[in-house]
């Protein structure tokens, strides 16, 4: 039973990654690309970590460490890119 729940989470996560990359093609502006790329891929990574915790419960400490790291650094990098783009556009 736990295996089916984990595989369902993995499928949901890969669909989230597909939506993220499709939005990276479809969106017209830099800021919307930052928005759709970073938020949907953060959701996908968190779903993959939850699914891996269901599939292999003995790995859960390292997986939760990786999830906390990605949840901490991923919005930070998108914010740095958006701020740098805004500042470089204002000066020129």
């Amino acid at each position, binding site marked *: 039973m736990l295996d089916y729940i984990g*595989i369902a989470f993995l499928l949901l996560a*890969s669909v989230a*990654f597909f939506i993220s*990359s499709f939005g990276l*093609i479809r969106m017209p502006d830099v800021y919307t690309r*930052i928005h759709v790329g970073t938020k949907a891929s953060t959701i996908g990574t968190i779903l993959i970590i939850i699914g*891996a915790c269901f599939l292999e419960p003995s790995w859960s400490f390292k997986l939760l460490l990786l999830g906390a790291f*990605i949840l901490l650094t991923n919005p930070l990098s*998108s914010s740095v890119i958006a*701020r740098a783009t805004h500042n470089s556009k204002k000066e020129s």
Partner: protein
Amino acid sequence: MALLIVILFSVSGSLILYRFIVGPTLSDRVVAFDVMSIVSVSFLLILALYFQRELYLDIALVMGLIGFLGATIFGRFIEKGI
């Protein structure tokens, strides 16, 4: 079921690579690099589940660290120049 996951991941990787090659400005390419690093970390987790190796989780952690540092340093380069 693993085949469907691999197909979805490869399609998303090709779309991100298209944005990385075509993207009009430098910021688009940096965003594509950031998303590609996250996708590669997640695909490494899928490989760790498929081959039953716990060692791949450490490699995924280091790859996430390097991707974050790369995106932050490129943000600094966009803002202030080299």
